[in-house]
């Protein structure tokens, strides 16, 4: 029924549509924007400190970023996550409950997270507690108690989370994609195998910590409003005599660049979860900038080509989008879409069509200019906050980028030409190099997906 009506193309305006449409008033003149100043120093043992003094409410964030994570766990998947979670279970002088109460008493909560290459321990508090927050972060990082009595509970939590992850289409697709793209590298193991978590004991947790935590891998960022002299003194006292430890691990992954297709059955699923990955220039490359702009135009914004096509034109998907996912020395262009099952092959066809169109012809200057203004606007929004700047600096530190990355960001972005965008699409966004994973109801989607001309040569690992 709905289709019949749709064919009639009725236009039902709630009011009379203007005969001569009024144009939006033109924007005024852009205001000046200055990046918040950041000052960095390095202590004798290797701890780096960065101070960002910005903002006007009495809050401050203290965030320690340690260059470790899943990259250091070898085949012991999630050992980094378990060890980092155990940091919250108390220090030599504070039981776990005391940590939570002390954090709340400063107006914050301690956040502890293991990442692929960066692990963070941080807290945002009322400014008057800045020095105490620095002490708490340092205590948790330097003096963990690792109580054996708490490990079974923590492991049971990870076991439960793992079981939930295996029931979510997003996690199932992500695990398969990581395995196909990164193989035996730790980044290729997104989820532990059955029974694996149970093999970790307090010695393996402590061992991971001892091998991977120390001054040379640690950068402490503070951002917000605070008394600089008091906080710097507190940070020097708290971190200045920490052991140096090992330098960061240098183990960049090698991403697959052969066409692979993996179909995973989720019987009866109303949607297909589609993931596509292909290697692109990493943040240290001169080509990274035009690559991010290419992504914005292709699938990285609401008005991007793929998003508009799949959502606003076809109605196949709610939130299709692409992004650049980076490790040190490695980056992928990743496309995510949850698609109505029956339209899975059609949606893939549209994605390939948009990529091929961009490879064939450079975008019109007007289209690219709108994307540049969008990115410039987001740059201002993000860097108008101390925490936004903090995140950018941590990213730059991981990838070894110079200060000009940030200070010349807007100028570099505006300098990208339509031809450069098409060059990136031609050189890197190559269907023949893609890894594609689809989690869905295979009996209804598999044949039509396998029959797509772009996938005929695909390996089916």
């Amino acid at each position, binding site marked *: 029924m709905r*289709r019949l009506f749709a064919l*009639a*193309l*009725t236009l*039902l*305006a*709630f*009011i009379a549509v*203007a005969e001569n449409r009024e*144009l*939006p*008033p033109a*924007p*005024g003149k852009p*205001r*000046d924007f200055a990046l918040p100043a950041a000052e960095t120093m390095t202590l004798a043992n290797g701890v780096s400190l960065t101070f960002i003094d910005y*903002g*006007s*409410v009495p*809050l401050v964030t203290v965030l320690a970023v340690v260059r470790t994570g899943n990259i250091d766990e070898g085949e012991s998947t999630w050992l980094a996550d378990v060890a980092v979670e155990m940091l919250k279970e108390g220090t030599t002088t504070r039981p776990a409950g005391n940590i*939570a109460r002390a*954090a*709340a008493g400063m*107006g914050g*909560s*301690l956040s502890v997270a293991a990442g692929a290459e960066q692990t963070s321990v941080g807290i945002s508090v009322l400014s008057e507690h800045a*020095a*105490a927050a620095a002490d708490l972060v340092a205590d948790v990082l330097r003096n963990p108690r690792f109580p054996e009595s708490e490990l079974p509970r923590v492991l049971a939590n990870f076991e*439960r*989370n793992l*079981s*939930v992850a295996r*029931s979510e*289409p997003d996690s199932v697709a992500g*695990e398969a994609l990581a395995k196909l793209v990164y193989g035996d590298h730790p980044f290729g193991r997104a989820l532990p195998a059955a029974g694996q978590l149970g093999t970790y004991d307090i010695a393996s947790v402590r061992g991971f910590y001892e091998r991977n935590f120390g001054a040379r891998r640690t950068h402490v960022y503070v951002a917000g409003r*605070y*008394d600089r002299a*008091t906080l710097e003194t507190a940070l020097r006292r708290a971190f200045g005599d920490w052991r140096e430890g090992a330098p960061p691990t240098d183990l960049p992954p090698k991403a697959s660049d052969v066409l692979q297709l993996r179909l*995973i059955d989720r019987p009866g699923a*109303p*949607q297909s979860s589609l993931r596509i990955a292909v290697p692109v220039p990493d943040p240290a490359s001169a080509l990274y900038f035009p690559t991010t702009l290419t992504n914005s135009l292709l699938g990285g914004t*609401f008005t991007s080509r793929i998003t508009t096509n799949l959502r*606003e*034109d*076809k*109605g196949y998907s*709610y939130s299709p989008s692409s992004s650049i996912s980076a490790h040190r020395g490695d980056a992928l262009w990743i496309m995510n879409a*949850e*698609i109505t099952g029956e339209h899975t092959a059609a949606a893939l066809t549209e994605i390939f069509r948009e990529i091929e169109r961009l490879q064939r012809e450079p975008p019109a200057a007007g289209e690219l200019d*709108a994307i540049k*203004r*969008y990115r410039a606007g*987001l740059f*201002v*929004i993000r860097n*108008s*906050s*101390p*925490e*936004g700047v903090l995140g950018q600096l941590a990213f730059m530190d991981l990838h070894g980028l110079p200060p000009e990355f940030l200070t010349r960001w807007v100028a570099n972005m505006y300098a990208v030409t339509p031809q450069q965008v098409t060059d990136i699409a031609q050189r890197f966004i190559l269907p023949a190099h893609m890894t594609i994973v689809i989690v869905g109801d295979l009996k209804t989607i598999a044949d039509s997906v396998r029959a797509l001309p772009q996938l005929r040569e695909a390996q089916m690992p």
Partner: protein
Amino acid sequence: MRNAGLRFWSGLLIAVAMSGCSIQPLKSAEESALPSGINVPIEYYKLGNGLKVVLAQDASAPTVTVGVYYRIGMRIEPRDRTGFAHLFEHLMFQGSTNLGKMEFIRLVEGNGGVVNGSTRFDFTNYFEIVPAHTLETILWAEADRMKGLAITQDNLANQQGVVKNEVNDNVLNQPYGGFPWLSMPQLANENWYNAHNFYGDLAHIDAATLEDARAFFDTYYSPGNAVLVVAGDFDATQARAWIGKYFAVLPARAQAARPDISEPPQTAEKRKSYVDPLAPRPGLAVAWHVPGRGTPEHYAFGLLDEILLQGEDSALWQKLVQQRGYSSSVAGGINLLGNMFNYDGPMLWTLYLVHDPNVAPDSILADIDAEIARIQNAPPTQAELDRALTKIRAELYDLAGSSDHFGLVDLLAAFALFDDDPTRINRIESEFRAVKPGMISEVARAYLQRSQRSVLILEPGRTQGGSQP
């Protein structure tokens, strides 16, 4: 577990930030006295057509946030059109008097801004965070769609497809989809307005017509049923002139009568179990009805929520997570789709967790009961109360100082729309400080009886982690 709510697009990332509204001199720990709290500069007025306007200046960054909130949420939607308030939110992006499909969003993104909309219990909001120099353009565009929509049958069909995909993304193809934010109101409430499926029956979404959309717009999307909030870097005189030029010219329209959305008092415990075919572990959710919004009891309940449930220092976290190890977290609060201020009607305080099959729901409930009984029997300790107030104070600073201004716009809109007084935002902290410890115990006794609770038990339909790919 997703607590996704309903929104136009999931892709928007708001930069979380601090930069400020009220500049306060910094003090060292020794000199810090009792805080004066936030002091947001607020200008509030109404246009002849009834549109409420709130202006809050903060020139700390060259950005401005515009929010238009209509007083129509998912509670009040036609009975044979569940999910319509949310579908209509999507239609607001499909074309208006002078802007065709996609042109609104292109106007915002192409000028360096972000845009989104969402549907909540008692309002539907549309907001943009943009460079300050584009304010006039954005005001014009929001006024254009308040003036009227121009939607084709094709566009309606397109968004019906998008919304059904959104329901699948967030609910139907997810373990724990809608648990408990969609399922609990249906158990705990009696009045249909509070107890129906807010995401909507897919058949109802399919059945929606352009005529339905026209009627909905005429009934609820009038200037007198809305508030416009502008926060950030702008010149107030100029902003008032633009608002006059673009919004004051819209004609006033009759206001719809508001249905009775009150809930009868609950006198007996409710329990319901259901099987989630995709979930691998059991889930437990418990909810109680909270005191009327804005009353002293409501503020006391807000402190009770902080003490019992908010943060890892809270009593229930310490008991259920840290001591018992039932789960890696216990979550919840007043209004799972917002906060204790941005709604207008009956509301639930809900807590929930996912646990292991070897733990019976009743043993978890017994531990919850014990923590509640402790507060019912004796007021919280001074240390507990101080921590609760400190957490609230930091949250308020964060809200007032955030450079995206989104949380600020949201609270100003709620206080203007529901209380006709956005300056209430500056009195939140003093309202909390006026609560005596004894009142927290009284409120716990009056509102957290076992007979007043609803217990929702999610049974896993998936035996284990499932097949490994």
